[in-house]
């Protein structure tokens, strides 16, 4: 089965336990230790359209947050200021 395509006709269109499923998928994306996580993902993404969409959307959001919100550059003088204050403490 094509796991990358959303257009697969074999997936059910509604998820009966959307709240539980989504939270589970989110925990897996967050790197939590979920037993058999790979199997869980394969199973859900292959069989359930809402889970498929949710998973890929969540994955995309995590990706853009990680790549686009961590580039704040630290002011150059900050480290020097901290070291100076620490010297005063000593």
């Amino acid at each position: 089965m094509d796991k990358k395509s959303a257009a697969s006709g074999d997936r059910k269109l509604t998820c009966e336990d959307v709240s539980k499923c989504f939270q589970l998928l989110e925990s897996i994306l967050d790197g939590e230790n979920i037993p058999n996580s790979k199997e869980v993902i394969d199973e859900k993404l292959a069989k359930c359209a809402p889970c498929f969409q949710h998973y890929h959307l969540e994955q995309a959001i995590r990706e853009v947050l990680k790549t686009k919100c961590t580039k704040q550059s630290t002011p150059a003088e900050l480290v020097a200021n901290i070291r100076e204050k620490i010297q005063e403490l000593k």
Partner: protein
Amino acid sequence: MALKTNMQAYRYIIRESGTKGQIKPKALTLFKKISDKFTLSLLLELMSEVQRKKYSDREKNDIFDNEFMPHIDSMYNFGYRLTFDEDDAKDLVQDTYLKAYRFINSFEQGTNAKAWLFRILKNSFINDYRKKSKQPAKVDYQEVETYYNSDDVDYGITTDLRVDAVKDMLGDEISNALNSLAVDFRTVIILCDLEGFTYEEMAKILDIPIGTVRSRLHRARNLLKEKLRSYAQNMGYKTDEEE
């Protein structure tokens, strides 16, 4: 007899906690059980004396340089996203590092320095910064949590946001969406998605149960998706399902 039992208990406590850092909760409970107030305070003082001398100056500098300073960029990013002001962020980060140095003996070498620093920064933000800046916290968290606690609002609204639209968004749009969230929601997303902390680490940083981390994060993400969805609409992306 009682004295002998107490002596054994004290030995146990000292052995358990002694020079290795903070007193374990189990030991502290036993401590309280067998001591009157005076003895308790005396012993705690003696033990913190032992702890205070845990690291030599050289060790302190090593820890500071090799375990604390490498996190400065993450710390500044966190500080900036909490305060939205460069000077405030600098103050907050500087305060955090000074506190970290002052209380370095309560840091356990080999444990997660980054999580330890983030916890100090978060507490400094709540205790110092929020009080100093006279503005009250913008949103009462409890209220927000209750409001979004209903599962009804969780799904449906945001399911039509498209992956492509998200991927095409500019840094500023993502950043603004994140910054528009109430501070408690913003914080969990920063910790989890930007900094990669585990739920367990987040629970320690924020002093909340792990279940609360999970649900707060879930709600934060739903709020973020609503923001992103409105950006996507403004960009002209069709957010409705294609016919």
